[in-house]
């Protein structure tokens, strides 16, 4: 007789081969067709909110692996919060204004005013940004990221632009915005201030000169050195590489603690730092001797004469002076240096700023009016020579700031700018205390941002650009103060911008607003720093959409560079607007590097492009890599690493496939209640329950790599190497509807229900695919569900308690070790060709007595006999924590049952079924075998 039809082999259509690159796009199409995002949101509408607020990537260029990591991490968080029982909306965003888009548009259309006027230029920028967003959006969606992709936020949306202006109005209203006159990085080619992030450093050759400034009051100087009388022929010496800043010299600074020497030379007395006297004299080609020394503090306000203008330069104290090089005295032009600016501010509120935005001196500047500063250096040096003030002149190569796009040197230049003052309305203090209301993950994030906020200068929020949101103010031409009705007007302008975009401000006619005052006030045409724009997304998006709850949002999640960027600007604007941080938690992830820890670059050839990974391995493999990698450090990726990840992927997939295959013919109504399940099955449910607790805790604390490790180990070891192996006999040979077989299927069903949920935030495509093969599913995707609730720990009086289970696993291990040599010698093919004697202590034997008859099923051998006799020499002993068990194997001599492959003595005892054992006869024609344990 052929017994094939009496065996229930695993059957499933779920494909072994993942074919992710081909299959994933189909699933995306289905998600789109069924509007999966909104269906889930609707389903979760009554749940508590968890909002991850998206940080907007810049809308320029195709996405790279760093973008992919960021969006996948966010998606894992959002999906795990859904499963944790929250309504977790996700609205992706894009940062759309700013320089890089202007540069891209300039390349095609020329600068503003060449081919296009400002309005047309802005329209072109808008079109360009929209195009870029479309490209990036497709790539992000392809990663399997679930969100409101058809209705994202874009900082160039009219509503968002209006939101920026409203936010600014509130910050102005709360007294944080001040008009300042400060040196900022200035590019003459951009004719604009540059942010720190827009600066590159490069080498430049400059003139390096030493210049003498004559002391005005010889008596005071002598007094500073404790000398009698008056020193009338004294000068001090400064060293500079920017002769063009000398017309703006207002002071010379000394260090209060430094020691200065008065040196007698042929051209009179010179003041130099004592430690630099020798090197200076050498440079000047002079000889001389030190007459007296004093500290810098005593020299304060021994003022000097400007070398070519008829005015006084103050001798001031400043911390930024060092005696490392030069002369130990620093020429200060406060308009052209940040430190100079701060040093001079303490002595004078005046800032001389003779250089225009076009790099020329003001026309009314004596001697050099109208000259370009880069042409002026030789003229200034010649003049100094003529006046006898030039002590030395040479050239000097050094690293200076360059504009990142023009690659030309920038200067510091004092320009009228708008600032968010860190201290005017105690923003710094409030922001620092707000930092401690936030949970920073990893925790060093707190120190980093605290240090930055503590030390940062005022935030310059104005730019002189075309493609940006305006600072819509009218200011008094003379006093540079905003019009008294500014608060009210900004809100009115915001309403106009909401209708017509930022052009509404640029097109606005000042006469309509100012009336008779039109000559007194001017319209500001500055735009806002783009970091301000994205920074206020908490207001322009979270507070403005009705489906994102309230501030603070639950989490911001970006790369670790954003402590300086978005986390920073969001914190400052949040505190400035509401007095509180806009977020509860901030999670940062490291940068992506190659396998050697090197930065990725085209030239190094180590770039892993997400688009390429989608085509070769699929999104789920990339997602699994993201989850498997500890994001707190740098994240290494290479083709080799991804290949290893895809092997792990296959392990998880095949485990799920085998579970599905065993569930063939199983429907929920066939499920066995927990208290009627076989102990081994019940034990597995307990194991799964314990693991689910770990998985939930790991998702709650964003430790995704832990989940990967635990779930992978569960598939490979607990299921693959143990449970599923043991269950084969029961699944294949017992009657289809028998309690024992249904019990095993029920355990597998519960485990698969839970397992699919565990992996759903990470392996989103695969989880959905598994789900569609589930015996029955309440909803179309696991993401509609919450963590599986049908798992439970084993009861306290459970027959297979932890100690018994440990003993059984120890016996199993000993058995496998014992069979290994027989298998190697080809004495047996499978374990079923063998029998074992299990040598135990009396106590252990007693503990296992109830399950002794079924032990052979757990060990997968044809006979397992428990004995308390001493183990023979050569038995395999396994010891654990002082307990040892011994297993002695032998090849079975009994006949082999053709149906179940066990070697048993009763094969052939039934006359109608000469080839099979008694157990199989019972399963084929009888009432069916009963199992009590395994």
């Amino acid at each position, binding site marked *: 007789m052929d017994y094939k039809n009496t065996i229930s082999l695993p059957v499933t259509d779920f494909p072994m081969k993942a074919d992710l690159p081909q299959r994933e796009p189909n699933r995306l199409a289905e998600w789109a067709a069924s509007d999966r995002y909104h269906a889930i949101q609707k389903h979760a509408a009554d749940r508590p909110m968890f909002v991850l607020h998206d940080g907007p990537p810049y809308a320029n260029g195709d996405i790279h692996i760093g973008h992919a990591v960021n969006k996948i991490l966010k998606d894992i968080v959002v999906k795990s919060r859904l499963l944790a029982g929250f309504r977790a909306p996700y609205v992706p965003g894009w940062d759309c204004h700013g320089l890089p888009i202007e540069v891209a548009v300039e390349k095609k259309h020329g600068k503003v005013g060449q081919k296009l006027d400002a309005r047309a230029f802005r329209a072109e920028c808008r079109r360009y940004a929209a195009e870029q967003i479309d490209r990036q959006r497709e790539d992000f969606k392809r990663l399997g990221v679930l969100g409101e992709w058809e209705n994202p936020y874009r900082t160039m949306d009219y509503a968002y632009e209006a939101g920026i202006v409203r936010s600014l109005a509130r910050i102005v209203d709360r007294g944080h915005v001040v008009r300042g006159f400060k040196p900022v990085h200035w590019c003459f080619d951009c004719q604009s201030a540059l942010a720190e992030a827009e600066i590159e450093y490069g080498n430049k050759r400059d003139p390096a000169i030493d210049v003498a400034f004559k002391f005005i009051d010889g008596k005071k100087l002598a007094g500073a050195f404790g000398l009698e009388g008056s020193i009338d022929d004294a000068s001090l010496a400064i060293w500079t590489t920017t002769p063009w800043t000398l017309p703006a010299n207002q002071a010379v600074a000394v260090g209060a603690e430094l020691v200065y020497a008065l040196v007698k030379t042929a051209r009179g007395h010179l003041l130099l730092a004592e430690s630099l006297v020798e090197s200076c004299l050498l440079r000047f080609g002079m000889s001389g001797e030190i007459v007296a020394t004093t500290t810098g503090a005593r020299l304060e306000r021994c003022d000097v004469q400007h070398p070519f203008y008829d005015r006084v330069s103050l001798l001031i104290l400043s911390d930024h002076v060092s005696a490392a090089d030069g002369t130990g005295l620093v020429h200060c032009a406060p308009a052209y240096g940040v430190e100079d600016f701060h040093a001079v501010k303490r002595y004078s509120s005046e800032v001389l700023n003779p250089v225009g935005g076009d790099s020329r001196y003001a026309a009314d500047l004596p001697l050099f009016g109208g000259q370009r500063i880069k042409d002026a250096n030789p003229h200034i040096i010649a003049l100094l020579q003529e006046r006898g003030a030039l002590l030395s002149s040479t050239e000097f190569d050094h690293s200076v700031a360059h504009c990142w796009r023009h690659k030309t040197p920038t200067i510091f230049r004092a320009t009228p700018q708008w600032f968010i003052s860190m201290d005017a309305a105690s923003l710094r203090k409030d922001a620092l205390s707000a930092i401690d209301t936030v949970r920073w993950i990893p925790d060093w994030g707190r120190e980093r941002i605290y240090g930055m906020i503590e030390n940062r200068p005022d935030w310059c929020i104005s730019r002189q650009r075309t493609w940006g949101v305006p600072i819509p103010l009218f200011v008094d031409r003379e006093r540079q103060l905003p019009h008294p009705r500014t608060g009210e007007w900004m809100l009115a302008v915001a309403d106009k911008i909401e209708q017509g975009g930022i052009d509404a401000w640029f097109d606005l006619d000042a006469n309509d607003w100012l009336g008779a005052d039109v000559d007194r006030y001017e319209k500001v045409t500055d735009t806002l720093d783009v970091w301000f724009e994205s920074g206020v997304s908490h207001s322009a998006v979270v507070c403005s959409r009705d489906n994102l709850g309230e501030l603070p949002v639950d989490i911001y999640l970006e790369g670790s560079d954003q402590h300086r960027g978005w986390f920073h600007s969001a914190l400052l604007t949040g505190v400035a607007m509401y007095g509180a941080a806009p977020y509860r938690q901030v999670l940062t992830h490291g940068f992506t590097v190659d396998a050697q820890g090197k930065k990725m670059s085209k030239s190094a050839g180590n770039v892993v492009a997400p688009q390429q990974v989608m085509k070769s391995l699929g999104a789920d493999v990339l997602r699994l890599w993201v989850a498997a990698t500890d994001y707190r450090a740098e994240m290494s990726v290479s083709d080799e690493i991804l290949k290893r990840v895809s092997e792990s992927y296959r392990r998880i997939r095949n485990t799920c496939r085998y579970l599905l295959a065993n569930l063939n013919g199983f429907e929920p109504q066939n*499920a066995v209640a927990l208290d009627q399940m076989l102990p081994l099955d019940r034990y597995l449910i307990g194991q799964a329950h314990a693991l689910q607790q770990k998985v939930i805790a790991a998702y709650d604390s964003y430790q995704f790599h832990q989940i990967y490790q635990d779930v992978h180990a569960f598939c490979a070891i607990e299921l693959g190497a143990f449970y599923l192996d043991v269950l084969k006999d029961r699944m294949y040979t017992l009657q289809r509807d028998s309690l024992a077989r249904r019990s095993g299927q029920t355990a597998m069903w519960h485990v698969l229900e839970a397992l699919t949920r565990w992996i759903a935030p990470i392996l989103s495509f695969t989880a959905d695919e598994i789900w569609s093969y589930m015996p029955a599913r309440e909803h179309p995707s696991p993401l509609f569900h919450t963590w599986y609730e049908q798992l439970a720990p084993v009861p306290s009086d459970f027959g297979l308690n932890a100690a018994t289970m440990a003993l059984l696993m120890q016996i199993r291990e000993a058995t496998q070790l014992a069979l290994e040599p027989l298998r190697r010698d080809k004495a047996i093919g499978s374990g079923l060709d063998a029998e074992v004697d299990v040598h135990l202590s009396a106590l252990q034997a007693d503990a296992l007595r109830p399950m002794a008859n079924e032990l052979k099923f757990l060990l997968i051998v044809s006979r397992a006999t428990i004995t308390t006799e001493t183990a023979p020499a050569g038995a395999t002993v396994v010891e654990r924590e002082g307990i040892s068990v011994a297993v002695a194997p032998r090849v079975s001599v009994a006949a082999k049952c053709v149906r179940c492959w066990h070697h048993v003595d009763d094969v052939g005892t039934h006359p109608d079924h000469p080839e099979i054992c008694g157990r199989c006869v019972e399963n084929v024609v009888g009432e069916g075998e009963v199992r009590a344990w395994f």
Partner: protein
Amino acid sequence: MTARLASYAWLWLSAVMIALDQWTKAIAVEHLIYAQPVPVLPGLNWTLIHNYGGAFSFLSHQPGWQKWFFLIVASAVTLGLMEWLRRTPRSNWILCLPLSLLIGGAIGNLIDRASLGYVIDFVDVYYQTHHWPVFNVADSCVTVGIVWLICYEIFSKEARTERQNGKP
């Protein structure tokens, strides 16, 4: 016109069955936890199940389009049955009754499929460990209707054959 549509009066029975079906489904959804059986009698549980496929989970894991497939097939069958009913004299209850039951059952499940994408089943009949696939009131209508029609066909054929053979 009225005369030709007279047998549509039987659609009241369909409507009653649809109402009964939808009402019992609503109760099941309200009171049952998904896939957790509630024992009623020996051999009968209430077990709430969502059925995405046809009978025996046919096509149940095909993404998306199986919904449309079943919707179209069910709609076509319903229209066909309505036409059959229209051509049947109103007084021929022995044919009108199963037809209206079939129409009611088909529409009952069609409503689920169109609005939810799956069919709600909750009647779980079993003997020992052997379970019948879980079903609902609409399925019962369809089953009764089909069995009735098959019997009708067989018996009326026999009747015809007997007549043709000249027996009384």
